[in-house]
C-alpha cells in the first residue's frame, strides 16, 4: 500500500514538472518580449531594454526557468507586473474565494446527484428515470455561460430575488456571503449534476442486477435494507472517482462563472492576468491550479483504493 501511494506521488511529481515546463514556455517564452508587451509597441527601445533588465527577462531561457521554478518551490511565486506586489498572497486569497464557491457547489451537488442517480435507477426505464436523466444531461452539455445568463436574467432581473453579483459588501457575515453565492453555485451545480447522477445511476443499476443483490432480496431482506446495505455501498465507489475528476472541470467552469458574476476567485485572476499580460501572475495561478488538480486526483485514487478491497489487496501484493 505504501509503495502504491509512493508510486502515485512520484508519478504526480513528474507530471507536475512537465506541466511547469509547458506553463513556463507558453506563458513566458512564446508571447515574445514581456517588456515590449507591457510598454506597448510605441515605447522607446532603451526603455524596453531597461525594463527587460529589471524583470530579468533578457537572461538565457534556462536560467529564467530555473530561477522561476526554484523560487516557486520555496513558495515565492514572483512579482506581479500589474500590481507590483508579490503574486503569492494574491493567488492564495483568490484560491480561498474559489474554494468557498466550489465547496458550496459540491456540498449541494454531491448528495443531490447521488440521490437523483439512485432514485432514477430504482425506476430504470420508467418515466421518472427518463425525466431525471434527460434533465441531467441537458443541463450538463450547456456551457456555463448559457446557464449563468439564463439564471441571471430569470432570478436576478425578472424576478429580482437573488443578487447577480457574487461580490459581497466588505465584512459581510457568512449567511450574506452564502446568499451572494447562490446563483454562481447554482450554475456549477447544474453542470455537475448530470455527471454525478449518471455515474450513481449506472453503479446502482449494475449493483441491482448483481447476484448478491438478488440473493439478499430472495433471502427476504426488506427492500430498504438491501438498498442501503448492499446496493449503495457498491454503487458509490465509481461515483467517488467521478467526483474527483470533476474537480478539474469545476476549476475550468469557475473561470467563466467568476467572470460572469464578478467574483474575485482564481479563475477571474487568471483571465485578468492573461488580458493584462501579467505573466508571473498568470503562470503562478495556472501552476497552482495544476497542483490543486493533481492533489485532488491523487486523493481520489487513494480513497478509491482504500474503499475497494479488490484493488487494495492487489496493490499490497
Amino acid at each position: 500500500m505504501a509503495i502504491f501511494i509512493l508510486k502515485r506521488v512520484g508519478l504526480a511529481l513528474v507530471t507536475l514538472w512537465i506541466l511547469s515546463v509547458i506553463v513556463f514556455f507558453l506563458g513566458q517564452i512564446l508571447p515574445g518580449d514581456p517588456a515590449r508587451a507591457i510598454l506597448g509597441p510605441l515605447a522607446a527601445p532603451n526603455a524596453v531594454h531597461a525594463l527587460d533588465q529589471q524583470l530579468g527577462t533578457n537572461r538565457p531561457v534556462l536560467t529564467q526557468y530555473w530561477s522561476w521554478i526554484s523560487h516557486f518551490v520555496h513558495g515565492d511565486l514572483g512579482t506581479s507586473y500589474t500590481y507590483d506586489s508579490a503574486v503569492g498572497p494574491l493567488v492564495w486569497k483568490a484560491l480561498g474565494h474559489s474554494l468557498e464557491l466550489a465547496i458550496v457547489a459540491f456540498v449541494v451537488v454531491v448528495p443531490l446527484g447521488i440521490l437523483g442517480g439512485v432514485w432514477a435507477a430504482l425506476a430504470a426505464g420508467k418515466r421518472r428515470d427518463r425525466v431525471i436523466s434527460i434533465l441531467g444531461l441537458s443541463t450538463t452539455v450547456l456551457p456555463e455561460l448559457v446557464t449563468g445568463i439564463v439564471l441571471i436574467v430569470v432570478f436576478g432581473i425578472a424576478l429580482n430575488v437573488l443578487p447577480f453579483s457574487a461580490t459581497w459588501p466588505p465584512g459581510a457575515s457568512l449567511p450574506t456571503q452564502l446568499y451572494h453565492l447562490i446563483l454562481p453555485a447554482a450554475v456549477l451545480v447544474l453542470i455537475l449534476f448530470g455527471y454525478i447522477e449518471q455515474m450513481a445511476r449506472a453503479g446502482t443499476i449494475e449493483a441491482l442486477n448483481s447476484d448478491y443483490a438478488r440473493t439478499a432480496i430472495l433471502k427476504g431482506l426488506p427492500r430498504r435494507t438491501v438498498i442501503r446495505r448492499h446496493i449503495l455501498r457498491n454503487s458509490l465507489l465509481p461515483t467517488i472517482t467521478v467526483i474527483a475528476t470533476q474537480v478539474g472541470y469545476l476549476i475550468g467552469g469557475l473561470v467563466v462563472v467568476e467572470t460572469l458574476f464578478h467574483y474575485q476567485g482564481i479563475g477571474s485572476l487568471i483571465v485578468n492576468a492573461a488580458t493584462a499580460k501579467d505573466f508571473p501572475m498568470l503562470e503562478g495561478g495556472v501552476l497552482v491550479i495544476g497542483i490543486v488538480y493533481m492533489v485532488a486526483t491523487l486523493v481520489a485514487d487513494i480513497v478509491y483504493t482504500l474503499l475497494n478491497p479488490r484493488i487494495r489487496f492487489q496493490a499490497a501484493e
Partner: protein
Amino acid sequence: MSVDAVSVESRAAIRSGRQQDRNELLRELLHSKTFLIGAGILLFWIVAAALGPTLVPQSPYAQNLNAINRAPSGAHWFGTDQLGRDMFARVIVGARDVLIVAPLATLVGTVIGTGLGLTMGYFGGFTDTFISRFVEAFLALPVVIIAILGSVALGPGNGTVIAVIGVIFAPLIARTVRSAVLLERQLDYVAAARLRGEGPLYIMFVEILPNVLPPIVVEFTVRLGYAVFTIVTLTFLGFGIQPPSANWGLDISTNFGVVPAGYWWEVFFDALAIATLVVGVNMVANAVEQAFEP
C-alpha cells in the same frame, strides 16, 4: 497473374461490404428521433450561417443611435443593442463564425490526434510512454486554462482559437485511437502486411486506419459539441474574434455590462442560440455514437 486476380476480386468484395455497412448505418440514423431533431437544429444554423446576411431584414452592423437598447418589438424581434444594432440580425449572422471555426478546430484536433494515436498504438514501447506522459501533463489542466495560455502565447483571434482547440483535442482523440490500434495490431492482416514487406507508414495509414475509423468518427462528433462550448467561452473571455464581428460569445461579453439595467435581450437570445446549437450537436453525436455501437 492468378494472385492479382484474387486480390482485385477481394478488394471489390471489401468495397461492396463497406458500402453495405454504410447504408445500414445511414438507415439506422434516419430512424433515430434524436438524430433527426439534432440534425434539424444543425441544418437551421447551417442555413443561417450560409445565407445569414441575405435572410435578415436589417444589417447586423448598421448602427442607429436613435434606437439604442430597445426592447423586443415588431420592428426589432430581439430588440437592439447599445449601438442600436438589430439583435435578431446579429444572432442569425453570428452563427457563421462558430460554424466555420468549430468544425475546422475539431478537424485539426482529429487529424493530429489520429496521427499521434496511430504512432503510439503501432510502435508502442518508448514512443508510447513518452507521448503518454506529455499527454497526461497536458490533461492535468482544465481546457479553458490551456486555451487562455495558448491565446496569450499566440494573440487573440480565430486562428488562435482553431490552433488551441486543435492542440487540446489532439491528445484526447489520440488516446481513443491508440486503444483501438492496440486491438487491431494483433490481427492477422497486419502481420500479413508486415510479411509482404510493407513499411510502417503504409500499414498504419492504409491497413489499420480504415478499420479504426468508426471510433474516430464518433470522437469527431462528440468533440464538435465541446468545440462550440470552448469557442463561445473563449470569445466571451476576450480571447477569440474581436469586435465588431457578430459573434454570440462576443456579444454577450460586450453587452453583459448593461444587463443589470434590465436590457436582458442583448444577451439572452445569444445564450439561447448557443444553447440550441450545443444541444443539436450533442443529439447528433449521441445518435452517431449509438449507431456505431455493435
